[in-house]
Structure formats: C-alpha cells, structure tokens
C-alpha cells in the first residue's frame, strides 16, 4: 500500500498550481462579479492542456487519467473557490472522456479538437423538469425518421448554456429511445446548441457559481446527424452512469480543493488575529474546530483520491467491478461537498465580520459548493441510494 502521489503527479500538481496562481487567480474576482470566465482565460487553460484533459492526444487532449484530472480539479477550485471555473473544467473532463470512449470516430474528429482548444464548450444535458436524479424518467425523445435522428423535449438546470450558445459546442444528452424499456430504453447523443434550428434556450439567475451559466434547453424537432449517437442504441443508461462516476469524482475533487484553500487561509488568519490580547488560534473553541475540520478534510481527500485511483485502475488494468466503482465514487461525492461547506462556513466565521464580506472571497465558495449539496451531478440522497444498493443489493433499491 502506498498513499503518496508519484513524482510526475507531484510535479503536475506544482505545475497546475503555478499556472492557476499566475493565470487564473488574477481573474477570480472578475469571474465572480461579471458572471463569466473570459474566453481568453479558457483558451489559455486549453493551451496549458487543462480543458478536456482526459481526452486522448489525437484530439488535442492530454489523455490524462483520473488521478491527474483530480489534481487539476483541486487546483482550479483552490484559486476560483466559486466553483465556476472548476465546473467548466470538470464537465468537459468527465463527459469529454465518455465521448472519447463511446462516440463515433467522425463525431470525435468534428467535436473534440475544438473542446481541447478551448474554442467550444462540452456539457452534460441530463436533468429535465420532472427531476434530475431519476434519469429513468427522462422523456426527451430521440427518434429515427428516414435515417435521420430527430430530438424533441426539454432539458433544464444545464451548466454552460450561455457558453455553449455563445462559443459553440454542445451537450452529451441523455435521451429516451424506447419509453417502454425504462433504463434500458435510454440512449446518449451529442446535441449541438449554437445556431441550431429548433433549439431555444433561457438562463437562470443562480445563488452561486456565477461565472458559469445555468439554463434551459428547449428542443423542438431538432435534427442531428446519425453519427452523433454516442455508443449503441438503448445503452445510454450504462454510459451515463459511467460518465457520472467520472464527473462526480472531479466534483468531489473540486470541493476539497476549495475547502483546502479556505482552511489554509483560515489557519493563517487565526494565528494572526488577536482577541483579548491572544491569537484566536489559542482559544480551544477555535483550535478544536480547526482540528476537526482538518481531519474531515483529510478523510474526504482520501475518499476522493481512492475513487480517482480506482477509476484509473479500472480503465488501465481492468480491476474493480462497476459496483465497487459506483460505491467508491458515491462515498466521495457524498462526503466532499458537505465537508467543504462546513469548512468554508467555519473559516468564514473565524474571519468574523470580514468573512461576511464579498471581498474575503469565502461566501462565494459557500454558495458554489452548495450547488453540489443540492444535487448538481447527482444529489446527496442519490449517493446514499447508490451506496445502499451496492451494499444491500438491488432488491432493496427504492425504485
């Protein structure tokens, strides 16, 4: 057993940290205030190899495994604790990987190079008005008519709608291809959204992660070429679960990155800040809280790193069953967002009135991380259902 990162992984972390501190950190305030990540920054991230990092080299990616992808997610969230940049990064890393694995060669050649260049955006369109986590009830229909693929329906609470309609790009979209078969009647396709006939979008104002948009995509008789079908017809549920495992691991990584940065700044602050002539850090009320939060963070990190490692082992060495992977990812995704939320909340409280200001930069972390408690990339209770199902067996599943 070995808990250390390899020399290359340590070097990569230092590299990403240097890149993020130099190139991304100066924009963190503006990303939060203006509600967008400047396209120039995205392109810079792309030329550093961060966007679509898991996509293979032939499409301009780095072919990164999930440990390296996790390292990058943590580092990005450290400098933009609002989660906006991390969200942009991780949906592309998670779902770009899935496209690379299952999309047609023609689709990959058309779509992926622009993603890895930072020109266009790739997201995931799963949630519908009836709910997000219960994907078996997805009703957006994909039908074959005269050798063409026609889509109808609507997706909502979708990350990056403004980015995708502005820069171009599209979504790995979960669609219903056979209403009688429930899970087994789902398929995956790529849906472009910029200047596409039959696509209309709208944007939500959100409570957090302002730097990346969230919106609705209405799909009305949209025709896509046949090669945009991802993988096999009616196998979409399995692909989607696989993609969610990838993306959820990176979500958990982003949460611990933001939490780690917050805790570090909090520790500096409590040593510096004096109350009644004593540093805050000397008060047990603060010191014990710090010790507890540090411990929780370490625990969450181990779960996240283990999940990433298991994914790499699965893809490279064919180890672990899907069930084991599902369980490991679900535990990481269950623990990391709440842990991050608690840590940021405590640090904000240590900061006192200053913590409540925008300038302290903590409240945006709190709001950003909260999106992952609510359920982006899978609600917390869904994680519990997955863990329960894997431990107790399918016969105890509530659905």
């Amino acid at each position: 057993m070995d808990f250390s990162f390899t020399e290359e992984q340590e070097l990569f972390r230092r590299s990403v940290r240097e890149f993020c501190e130099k190139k991304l950190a100066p924009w963190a305030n503006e990303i939060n205030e203006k509600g967008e990540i400047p396209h120039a920054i995205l392109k810079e991230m792309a030329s550093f190899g961060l966007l679509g990092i898991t996509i293979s080299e032939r499409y301009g990616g780095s072919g990164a495994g999930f440990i390296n992808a996790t390292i990058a997610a943590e580092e990005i969230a450290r400098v933009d604790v609002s989660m906006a940049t991390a969200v942009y990064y991780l949906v592309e890393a998670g779902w770009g990987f899935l496209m690379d694995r299952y999309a047609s060669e023609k689709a990959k050649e058309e779509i992926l190079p622009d993603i890895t260049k930072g020109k266009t955006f790739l997201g995931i369109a799963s949630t519908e008005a009836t709910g997000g986590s219960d994907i078996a009830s997805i009703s957006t229909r994909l039908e074959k008519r005269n050798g063409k693929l026609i889509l109808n329906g609507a997706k909502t609470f979708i990350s990056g709608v403004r980015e995708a309609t502005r820069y171009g790009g599209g979504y790995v979209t979960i669609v219903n291809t056979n209403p009688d078969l429930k899970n087994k009647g789902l398929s995956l396709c790529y849906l472009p959204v910029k200047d596409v006939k039959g696509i209309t979008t709208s944007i939500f104002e959100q409570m957090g992660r302002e730097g990346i948009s969230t919106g609705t995509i209405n799909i009305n008789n949209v025709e896509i070429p046949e090669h945009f079908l991802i993988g096999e017809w009616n196998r979409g549920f399995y692909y989607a679960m696989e993609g969610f495992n990838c993306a959820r691991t990176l979500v958990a990584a982003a949460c611990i990155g933001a939490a780690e940065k917050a805790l570090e700044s909090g520790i500096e602050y409590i040593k510096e800040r004096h109350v009644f002539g004593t540093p805050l850090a000397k008060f047990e009320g603060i010191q014990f809280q710090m010790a507890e939060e540090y411990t929780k963070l370490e625990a969450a990190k181990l779960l996240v790193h283990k999940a990433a490692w298991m994914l790499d082992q699965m893809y490279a060495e064919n180890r672990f069953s899907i069930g084991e992977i599902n369980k490991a990812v679900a535990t990481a995704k269950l623990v990391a967002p709440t842990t991050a939320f608690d840590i940021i909340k405590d640090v904000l409280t240590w900061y006192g009135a200053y913590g409540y200001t925008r300038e302290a930069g903590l409240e945006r972390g709190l709001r950003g991380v909260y999106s992952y408690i609510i359920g982006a990339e899978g609600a917390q209770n869904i994680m519990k259902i997955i863990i329960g199902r894997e431990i107790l067996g399918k016969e105890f599943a509530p659905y």
Partner: protein
Amino acid sequence: MIFVFSEDNETSFEILAEARKLADSSKSKIAAISFGGGEDDYIAGGADIILSINIEPHEDSVVEGISQLIDQYNPEILLIGSTKFGREVAPRIGQRFGAGCATDCIDFSKDNENLIVKRLVLGGRFIATQRFLRKPRIATVPPRRFEKNIDKSRKGEIIKISFYPAETRVQVMETKKKAPQEMRIEEANIIVSVGRGLKKKEDLKLIEALANVFGGAMGCSRSIAVDLKWLPEEHWVGLSGHKVNPRLYIAIGISGQVQHIAGIRDSRTIIAINKDPNAPIFKACDYGIVGDLYDIVPRLTEILKKQS
C-alpha cells in the same frame, strides 16, 4: 592587510569605515584599491595605503589587477562593494585563489584571527553566520549599509601601479540608459504604500515620486484599490490582496487593519507615516512618524533625492 575595493566611490568610503574597525582590532593595515585615479580621499576615508592602478575598471581588468596585488601583498581579507560589478569580480577572484566569498555581508566581527560575517538568506527571513576556511577571506558589502567616516587629518601612502592587462575579449557594443521598471509587487525590495490618508487620486504622484527615488514599487491598502479604484489591484497589499516581503515597507496614511498587517508581516523593516498617533500601524512598525503625509512625504522625497 585588508584590501578594499569598489568601483563605486561612495561604497568604497562606506567599506573603508567598516574595514577600519576590523583593522584597528587586529592592528593590520588597509589598502584601498583604486582604478583610473581620483583616489586621494581614501586615506581620509580610512585607508593606510592606496594602491592606484592606472587603468579604467572593467570586470576582466579588475579581476586581473586585484589578483596580481593579492599575489604581491598576500592580504588576509578582501572587501568588495556589492554592486553588480563587485558581485561579479569577487567570486571570480575567489575561484582564482581557491577561496570562499560571502555575498552581501551586513555585519563583521572577529573570532580570534578569523573573520565572522552575517548575511541574510532564505528569502531574507533568516540570518546566516559564516566564517572563512581559507584565505584571502573575501566578502562583498552592500552599498549604503555602513556610514562613511572621513578624517582629513589621517596620513597614508599612495602607491602607483602600472598595469597592462591582457586585452579583454568582451566587446562592448553599446550602452543604454534605463527607464524606471515595472515590477511585481511581491518581488519588490522596497514598497511605498498608501492608504485612505490620501485625499485625491492626483496626489498619488507624491507617493510615486517617493517610490521613484529608490526604484521602489507602489503599494496601497484595500480602500485605494477596491473602493476608490485609484490603483489597479496589482498594487493592493493585504491578506486578500498581495502578501509582500520587501526589505523596506513604507506605509503612508495607512491605519493598519489586521488584514493589511497580515499582508506585510514578512517585511524586514516597516516604516509608518500617519497623522493619527493611535493608528494601529504604529504598533506594527519599526519606525513611525506622526504627521500629515502632505507635509512629510514631499520633504522626505527631497531629502532622499539629495542623498541618493
């Protein structure tokens, strides 16, 4: 014997004064080395002998010239001004004689016969005490570190040395004047920083003028960068802005909120100018002066300009 050399005249005098203390304690003599003439005052500055070489100083000729003098006089100690020029020639001479060299020494003392020096290391947060294992003991001395000590009544001897160096291989094609440089505030040696005490944006030029006297960077408190937006955020010093560690941080009209103090903690020396004697910055500075910045800063700039 102690050799003293700097191509910068002021620095020579400063080193001579410090060398005098070392020489007096061990009854040795000081030889000031001069290139290209104009050296007479070195006796008044503390030298016993002036070794006057008849050529203009260039890196190669100085290395060659001083090395020949070392062969001839066998000095115990060689002190060289820590200018860019001096920092190049000192180690080259050291390598030639298989001797060590301590750069930018800020303190000299004697331990029996050996020379003990102190210098800043590890980002200026630590001080190293070092001694020499072989001779000559070579140290470079930062300009403006020591006060010169002129005594016109001092007597000494000038020895003229004719020296014909091998022709230098380096060919200097052109020299250009320098424009004041933009630097990242984290890397600045000196930061002149301003806060809410400044009344209007145009007055920033007072602060800039002071910073320009020694090529320092301009910093500011949160209110100047964030609220008033008089300076871009690159200049914002503080926990949420930039954490800095200059040799000298001058806080002008900055009250000293905890976030600001945390950002300047690692500065070596902090100077505060503020009209409120109860401002917390006075509890976090090394030197403070109570008064109106509009009165103090222009006067200070004038005095420093004259001395630089």
